[in-house]
Each structure stands twice: as structure tokens, then as C-alpha cells.
């Protein structure tokens, strides 16, 4: 999908000014409050047409969760999803079964028959997210979807994002944090959109990482460009040395810890070591040496 000279003006202010952009894979949008993140997402989703310019190659159906999800209060959660599933191109049976499965997966409380107006903020958001992932659409747009979600629901969200990426969909997501270390990172501000970091992994997802995960651990925001060498021990006793970029660092180390391994040492990497490997970033690909039976 492509933005061509997209301008959005509110009250004589160009929130976006002539933005040209190519969107593919996992794209995270960051920027301060009022910088135009939500505007960029609304235009990408087709919720609003830009003042000038155009969006090319947007799929017919888009799963979109706005910053403030305000569904009709009197409708039941399951009925809402069954109906909006039809809007997303599903037939009645597929819409109903997919809605039921997603609400169960998100563990909607008090239950799928609850009226949307009676749900807590987090539970209402679960319904919004279930809508966005209801159909196998080519584009999913999420405006700060982590706000108000508990850890379990956030984990489901991350899994759904991974599944969407795996089937080749584009996922565009606004966030205050760098929620996906391998994703393309855009920064919005002053009417412009700049690519802060190109995607460092393919659309096929790796292990779930980042502050959206149930650990809530950090993600290297203080020094994103530092390259480190880490010595780790896998659960089977295999010792490995990994060279990692700042952005991938926590993700890879967290994955080792999750497998039951240990991180033995982390130190800055000299500039001449591992330069070529850091582009792709997963620990398997950046492995520079290994030794069996490391203590």
C-alpha cells in the first residue's frame, strides 16, 4: 500500500503535508501526542479521505481499531461481531464461528452476550480487536491497542498480529513504545513521516517480545543503536555467543531466558565485529561462534 502526496489539514494546520510512504509488513508508528499518528492511521484504514493526495493499493476490507473504540452501546458483543463480520466480507456462518472463537480467545467478560455499553474499557477494546482480526483482511490498523488491555489479552493481541503477518497481511500500529523490535518504525511529527528504522526481519514473526508481552520488560529504548555481544547458555547446555543490534537485543535475550537458558555476559561489541550479521538480527542468524558444553 502506498501514500502518494497525502496531505491532511485541520483548521489550517497541515497535520500531514505531502506524505509519500510505502507500507508493508509490520509497521509501528510513533510520535508525540497530537503529532498526527492517529490521522495517518485513519487515512491508511480508509476511515477518512485525505484533504489532498491519495492512497493506492489499499485492500477492500480493513480491520481497524480506532484510538477510542465506541461501538453501539445497546448491541450484544457477539451480535456486533456477527454483523461487522458481514461488512468485512465473511458469510454469516463464518462470521458467527469466527466471532465466537475470538471472544473465547480474548476471554470476554462477562460473556459474549453482554451489551457493549455495559463492558469495561478493556473488554470493549477486546471486541474492537476481535473485529479487526475477524476476517483474513490484507490490512489491519491498530491505534494504540495496548491501552487498557490486561497482560493475557495483550498476549492474544500479539499472537493475532503474528498470525496476520504470517498470512501476508500488513499490520499498521500506533504505539508510544517500540513494541516490535523487528518492525518498520515510523516517526510522525511536524507534518512529516520519517522512517526511523527499516524492518529488520521479514513479515514472518519471531518470538513475541517487547513491553506488550506478559513480562513487561524493557526494550532498549535508552540506546537503540548499541551493538552488543552476548554469551548465553541454552537449556541443553550449549553455549553460544550472539552479536545483536540494540533493537533486537532484548528480544533475543528474552527468548533465551524464556526457553529456560541463561544469559552469562553482555558487553558492547567492537565496531569491526559482526557488522555484516546485524542486518537480519535473529539470534540464529547472528551466531558467530558456538562451543559445546560451555559451563
Amino acid at each position: 500500500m502506498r501514500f502518494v502526496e497525502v496531505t491532511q489539514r485541520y483548521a489550517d494546520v497541515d497535520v500531514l503535508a505531502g506524505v509519500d510512504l510505502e507500507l508493508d509488513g509490520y509497521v509501528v508508528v510513533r510520535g508525540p501526542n497530537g503529532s498526527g499518528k492517529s490521522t495517518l492511521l485513519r487515512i491508511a484504514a480508509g476511515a477518512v479521505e485525505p484533504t489532498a493526495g491519495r492512497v493506492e493499493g489499499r485492500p477492500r476490507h480493513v480491520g481497524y481499531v480506532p484510538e477510542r473504540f465506541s461501538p453501539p452501546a445497546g448491541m450484544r458483543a457477539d451480535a456486533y461481531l456477527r454483523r461487522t463480520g458481514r461488512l468485512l466480507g465473511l458469510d454469516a456462518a463464518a462470521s458467527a464461528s469466527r466471532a465466537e472463537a475470538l471472544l473465547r480467545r480474548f476471554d470476554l467478560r462477562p460473556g459474549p452476550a453482554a451489551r457493549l455499553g455495559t463492558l469495561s474499557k478493556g473488554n470493549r477494546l477486546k471486541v474492537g480487536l476481535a473485529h479487526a482480526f475477524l476476517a483474513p483482511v490484507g490490512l489491519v490498523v491498530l491505534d494504540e491497542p495496548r491501552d487498557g488491555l490486561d497482560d493475557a489479552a495483550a498476549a492474544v493481541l500479539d499472537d493475532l498480529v503474528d498470525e496476520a503477518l504470517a498470512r501476508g497481511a500488513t499490520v499498521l500500529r500506533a504505539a508510544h513504545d517500540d513494541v516490535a523490535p523487528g518492525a518498520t518504525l515510523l516517526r510522525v511529527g511536524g507534518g512529516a513521516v520519517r522512517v526511523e528504522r527499516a524492518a529488520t526481519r521479514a513479515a514472518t514473526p519471531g518470538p513475541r517480545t517487547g513491553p506488550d508481552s506478559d513480562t513487561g520488560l524493557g526494550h532498549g529504548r535508552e540506546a537503540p543503536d548499541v551493538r552488543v555481544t552476548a554469551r548465553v547458555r541454552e537449556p541443553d547446555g550449549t553455549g553460544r555467543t550472539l552479536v545483536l543490534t540494540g533493537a533486537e537485543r532484548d528480544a533475543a535475550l528474552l527468548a533465551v531466558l524464556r526457553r529456560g537458558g541463561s544469559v552469562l555476559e553482555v558487553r558492547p561489541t567492537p565496531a569491526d565485529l559482526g557488522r555484516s550479521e546485524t542486518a537480519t538480527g535473529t539470534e540464529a542468524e547472528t551466531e558467530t561462534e558456538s562451543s559445546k558444553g560451555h559451563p
Partner: protein
Amino acid sequence: MTALVAYTVARCGRAQVWVAPWLTFVVAVALLDAPSGRAADALALSTVTLLFVAAWLTIATLGSQAPEQAGVLAAAVGGARRERLGAQLAAAVGSAVVVPVSLLVAWVESRNPAQPASLAHGLSVPLVVTALLAHVVAGVCGTVVGAALARPLVTSRVVSLLVVLLVGVLLVVVPWAPVSVAVSRTGHPTWGGAALVAAVAVAVVAVGAAVAWWTAGLAARRA
């Protein structure tokens, strides 16, 4: 588009968005009894009523949804303009629901034993055909005017109301305005009059669709 209309009908039904315009129509048509007691006059009166009620119902339909939710639907169906057109179509369906009430009131009027003269002016086939076409003209005009005056194009309810009244009165009183033609031919039904109202209805549907497309585009940019 069918799914979007079904969604909007369900939403407005659940939130009782249409109840007030519907009741107003029923009460107005039943109480504003045609002074002549003629079925034709009753149907002319209900045509005028439908114009204003359709505009109100459309403004209520488009204004009763959070803009964020309109965005969710727009993304799902392929754009904000398409979403707006679907909601307008649903409003037209909501307005059409009351048309049988017009016929019922006219039928009761035609069988009123207190006014024997009315039997001579009862429900004839040309009258029913003309009246139904006149209701199409009024309903489409009301829906299109209402859509142009609904959020986000006009955010003030007072402004919307005043402009609806002004445009509505002009559509009724200006000679050869579509509703004016429809009302006058309903008052004196003939097959020739029915043909004229049919032509007006076709023109109103065509022009109305173009205007609705245009205002939906304006709304899509302001959503």
C-alpha cells in the same frame, strides 16, 4: 452495501433512534386530519409530513453514531464515502417503513360514515399509485436534504433544523418543485398525474443519488 444497511437498521432499532420520527409521523398524519375528509387530501398531507420526517430521521441516523465507529465501519466496507452512502440508504429504508401508515389513514378516511361525500373520493387505483410515487419523491428529497445537513457537515442541531424547515417549505410551495408537483397531483389524482409524478420520482432519485454521492464525499473528507 446490504450488510451495512442491515447493520445500521439493527443499530438504530436497538438504540430506538427512529422511534421519535416514526411516532411524530403517525401522530401528525392521524391528527392533522384533512379538513375536506378526502383520502386524496390525507395522502397529500402525509407526503408533506414524510418530507420533514425523512430529513429528521436521516439527521438522527447519521448523527447517532460516534465518528470513531463510523471510521471502523468505513475501513471494513472500503471507505468513508461508501459507509456514508450505506447509512443514508438505511435512513431511506427507515423512512419507507411509515408509508403504509399513510395508506391506512387514507383508507380509514375514505370509509368515514360521517362524511358520505368522501365515498365519491375514496381510494382509487390512480390515487394509490400517485400517492406512493409522491411518497418516494418526498422520502428521497427528505433523505438527501437530511444527509447534507447531518454531522459532520453541519454540527449544530439548530442550524440543521432551520435549514430543513426552509428547504422543506421551498420544496412544497415553489411551483414545479418536486414535492410541490407530487402533492398537487396527489390531491387531484389522474393517470396522467401519476405519470408526471413517476417522471418526477425518477428524476429525483437520479439527482438525489448524485447529490448524496457528493455530500458523502464531503463528509468522508471531514470524518
